[in-house]
């Protein structure tokens, strides 16, 4: 691979959704950046706050309704009506988490700890916290600060910086 003339120096990720797949997209991208030695900041907002809220962070779900890409084990399409049945969403979510564990993809809390250990920074959105009536104490201890959008943007300056919205 040719060497990039202007390699990435900083990535700022915004995670606004709370399903397993949305949160993990942000976490995998963030951890990957940290492992490459890229300065990394993640801003959790709206339902993404579930990923850094103590009560919810390790029991995220995936939506089983209205997802045309959803498949049964074996590859048959997953009927949306099946997804409505009680317990199905929990079962599918548990299955997804166990599949990820086999690939050495850690649970959310451990993943955040890995990112933090490598120097990545985790922030929460003030506006969304006010909306969901969350306090700083409700959040995972590793959250560095609660920020306004403006404060987050102030951190995202500099050449060779990218903002990624997952």
């Amino acid at each position, binding site marked *: *691979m040719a060497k990039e003339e202007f390699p990435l120096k900083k990535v700022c990720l915004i995670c606004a959704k709370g399903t397993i797949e949305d949160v993990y997209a942000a976490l*995998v991208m963030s*951890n*990957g950046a940290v*492992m*490459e*030695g890229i300065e990394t900041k993640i801003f959790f907002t709206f339902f993404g706050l579930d990923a850094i809220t103590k009560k919810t962070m390790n029991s995220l779900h995936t939506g089983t309704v209205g997802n045309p890409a959803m498949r049964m084990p074996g590859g048959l399409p997953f009927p949306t009506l099946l997804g409505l049945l009680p317990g199905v969403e929990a079962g599918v979510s548990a299955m997804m988490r166990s599949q990820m564990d086999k*690939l*050495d*993809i*850690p649970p959310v809390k*451990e993943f955040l*700890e*890995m990112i933090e*250990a*490598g*120097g990545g920074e985790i922030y929460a959105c003030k506006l969304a916290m006010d909306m969901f009536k969350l306090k700083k104490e409700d959040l995972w201890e590793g959250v560095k600060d609660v920020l306004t959008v403006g404060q987050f943007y102030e951190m995202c300056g500099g050449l060779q910086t990218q903002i990624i919205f997952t």
Partner: protein
Amino acid sequence: MAQKIIAGVTVDVNEEGYFTNPAQWTKDLAVEVAKEEGIQLTDKHYAVLDFLRDRHSKGEALTIRSVGNSGIVDIKGFYGLFPGAPMKKAAKVAGIPKPASCV
């Protein structure tokens, strides 16, 4: 395939400097490769290198989490040993291919 002379020994490497034949690796070579990365090897480094080489020889994926669970060093410590890009640097010094894992 590219070759490189490290400490007077000719080894097979790829264009990024990763060993393509882990059997050519020795501790003396590791010292030199580490120097190029700005790292002075300690016993802790060697323990991590042995762990990675062992996992690689068994065909297991190299993930940062596995290093953290190895009992040798925690993840923060791993970043401390190989600053910047720990998995890539450690693999290079350990004489094994660049890790192909995303985690």
